[in-house]
């Protein structure tokens, strides 16, 4: 029934259903036809046939509007539990298309592809931490008249990694460390590059040597610390939430940090890569498995 993302929507996976308005339209055509018959009225016949022909053409155009659409999914870079996952659905259609709709439980989006390309964004609810399978997406279009609905289902094998919901238990203690630190220790001169702040340029050097240089500053040494699962209190989810908040705070502060979870240890590091690995470890952590491992 469903197709995978990235393949053009084939004919046999595309379903056409009349809408309620379409059924009413059929009744209208019948009424006009009876009108034409009973009054022997040629123009009424003509209009009845035209409305019928319009419905047929609308059916074909609805079908063609969705046929061959390629939908690929763009997963959100990070999702925290309790928030929403902004799932991007990238459409490419080859030709201009209008009124494409994506529906999923709890969210819907609608877009036009005037250039044959476009992206819709769906706000999926992400209630729980962990690996979440992507739901079945329904592609739909009732363009151009709303008489018929073309339907197709899109099922992705990819899954979404939902990070724990960040929870600050006692924020101030961790935030002061390194938070708001500016690179302030003068560490020498380097060649100026376009884009350097004028305040950082060594104007004196320039007047003396005629070469534009910029002052370089170094960041004072940061904290080096470990975030430990066992050091937190509460049930596992709460502990993971606290750890998540700390990872975010330390990353913001530019600290070097490592993560110790039962069975998983992430060595100390810094930067966005460390942040991602730490958050992924938190998201994938399975307290039940740990408990089983410790039990024997």
């Amino acid at each position, binding site marked *: 029934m469903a197709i995978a993302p990235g393949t053009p929507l084939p004919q046999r996976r595309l379903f056409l259903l009349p809408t309620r308005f379409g059924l009413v339209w059929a009744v209208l055509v019948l009424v006009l036809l*009876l009108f034409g*018959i009973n009054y022997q009225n*040629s123009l009424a016949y*003509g209009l*009845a046939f035209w409305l019928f022909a*319009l419905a047929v*053409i609308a059916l074909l155009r609805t079908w063609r509007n969705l046929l061959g659409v390629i939908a690929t999914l763009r997963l959100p870079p990070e999702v925290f539990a309790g928030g929403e996952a902004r799932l991007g659905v990238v459409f490419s259609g080859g030709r201009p298309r209008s009124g494409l709709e994506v529906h999923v439980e709890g969210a819907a989006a*609608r877009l036009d592809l005037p250039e044959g390309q476009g992206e819709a964004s769906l706000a999926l609810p992400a209630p729980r931490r962990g690996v979440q399978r992507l739901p079945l997406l329904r592609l739909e279009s009732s363009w151009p*008249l*709303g008489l018929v609905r073309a339907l197709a289902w899109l099922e992705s094998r990819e899954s979404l990694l939902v990070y724990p919901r960040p929870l600050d238990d006692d924020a101030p203690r961790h935030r002061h460390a390194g938070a708001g630190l500016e690179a302030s220790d003068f560490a020498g001169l380097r060649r100026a590059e376009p884009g350097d702040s004028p305040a950082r340029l060594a104007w004196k050097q320039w007047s003396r040597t005629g070469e534009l240089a910029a002052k370089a500053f170094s960041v004072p040494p940061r904290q080096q610390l470990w975030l430990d699962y066992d050091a937190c209190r509460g049930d596992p989810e709460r502990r993971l939430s606290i750890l998540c908040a700390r990872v975010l705070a330390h990353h913001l502060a530019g600290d070097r940090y490592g993560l110790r979870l039962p069975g998983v240890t992430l060595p100390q590091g810094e930067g966005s890569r460390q942040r991602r690995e730490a958050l992924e470890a938190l998201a994938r952590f399975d307290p039940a498995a740990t408990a089983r491992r410790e039990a024997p």
Partner: protein
Amino acid sequence: MRRAAALASRSAAPAVLADGRALSGVMLRRLFIGQCLVLALHLAWMPAWLAAVAALVAGYRYLQLRRRLPRAGVVLRLAGVGLLVAALWLQYGSLGNMEGLIGLLLGVYLLKLLETHTRRDARVVVLIGMVTTTAAFLHDQGIPMAVGALAAVAWLVQSLVWLAGARRPRQAWRETAWLLGLSAPLMVLLFLAFPRLGPLWNLPQAQRAATGLTDEIAPGDIARLSRSDRRAFRVRFEGDEPAPSERYWRVYTLSHFDGERWRRAEPERLAATLGRPVGNFVGEGGRSPWRGAGKARFSAELLLEPDNRPWRPALGEPLASDERLRWLADGTVEGLAPLASRSLLRLESSGLAPAHPDPAGPGWHTLLPAEGNPRTRALVERLWREAGGEPRAFLADAMARFGEAPFRYTLAPPRLTSGDRVDEFLFESRAGYCTHYASAMAVMARAAGVPARIVAGFLGGERHPDGYFTVRDYDAHAWVEVWLDGAWQRLDPTAVIAPERIERGAQAVSEGAEAFLADAPFSPLRLREVGWVNHLRLDWERLEYRWQRGVVGYQRQARDDLMAQVARRLHALWEWLVGLVPGHGPVAGALGLLSIGGAAAGLAALLRLGWRRRHEGRDEALRIRRLQAWLERRGLGARAGESPAGHLRRVAAAAGSAGPALRDCAHQLERLHYAPLREDERQARRRQLGRRVVEVRRRLGRLPRR
């Protein structure tokens, strides 16, 4: 500038507000414009206050959207409907007739805007609009109506496209044009091929104004003469066309004279008066049941205008038709029902007055009031004596009197007021038009004992260059028939007093256009003398005639004829096919059909290929995408996130002999994408790319498909 931009952005607003339910003000305006277009189709026939209803409803919605008024509640809506019904009742006296029903439909359509809040409501409004448009075809089916309806339907369809989610006017109109354009051929096909059925049940019919023809004439009542240029009917002849002096269209005979007015004696009334069965006076069927009917000389195809009476004109005595009619014993014919819309009728007729006696008998046709008009009676007695009791000579004498000096033909004669109107006309005023002369002549004939009756109908008709005649209200005429030598004879006193009326039509009489178009101040016929205007008028009439005959008159007969013709053509084509292929019988025919189908399919495939080539020649990205898809089918697909050029280069390493070509493809693609090239260089590189792609396919073609 800013104002224009604001306007543009407003007109481009989507149909539904951001909450996904409520209609935007712009969409309501579109629905209102649609209502105005549909209403315009009706306004010429419907009371003008309906326009005020539309304006009131739109004004209310406008203020309500501006938040100065609450939404229309149930009470207000019910009051609106109540007022509408009351107003229609006052206008028409009941709601059961056609106009009342159309008014109700229109009013409901207009009032519906009050409670239109969601997309669903808006669609209902559009649907009612379609029905209301159809109802307008009950008034008229002419070209202006069809064009107006086309505009209205296009606007309604465009409204539906907006409701389906169009964002820009260009998009909405484009889609509407596609829809209408693509569906038109299917519509035409259905229109031509759909079997036409008779009416399934009776519906209220629209009341039609009567033409200038009356079934009662009272010489002296000046207002009785219609001088409008309204068309009465159009006619085309198969075979002979009548000369101008033969174009006497008989419609009614008036055989009952009460001293002042001549009346028609309908078969039922005649039967009741004379105490005989109705069957003696009228018969239904496809041809005239009366014995001694003459031979058919003219075969006419009449395009009749709607009228509230079922009369049908016939040139002389009607003889046969393609539909069931009521054939009256006086040699006239009636339809079974009045015509609500223009329709076609084929009628054969003799061109002469009937040759069979009227079953009412000579007694009925010599009946005069016992007293009155003494001077006329005295004159008749004198003439009869002078003629030696010979009817023919008597009638000739009587007719000749009208050609003498004091009598004149005028469309504005003095009123006749005395009790002896014939006396007053013959001896005092001596001025009048056809009915005066016909009445006087018939009275004189009857006074002499010669059976006589007045025939009301039309004389003449304008011959169009295309070969059909238009007969208008002002062509209405009256003349006399007398029973002489075993047949009715036509006797037209007007031919004596105003021969130009017979030869050149009503407009030729001395008073000219002013008088004969007195009831039609804006008629284009007034400009008959201006060459190019007359040309335009004739062109328009030709178009109108073709439309009425070909489209509006496309009913059962026309459809059956066309289908028979198509079947003949198909059969001829089949025969030709069978003859084309050596051998005989259906197998050969099927073979021929197959080969033609094959040739057509081949041609279509070639065209498609050419189109694709052309398209690819201008779009290198498309060409490369197709190449990538082709590679993918052979298991050499791109990896996720790989650029097209990167993909080709990676594949090139494993592609053996196709490697250099693939690398060159990637190179050309990158040059085309990123290098600043002149147009001719660009073309050259595209061609090079095309050749390389062909080479890749040739060299890799031996790989199995997966």
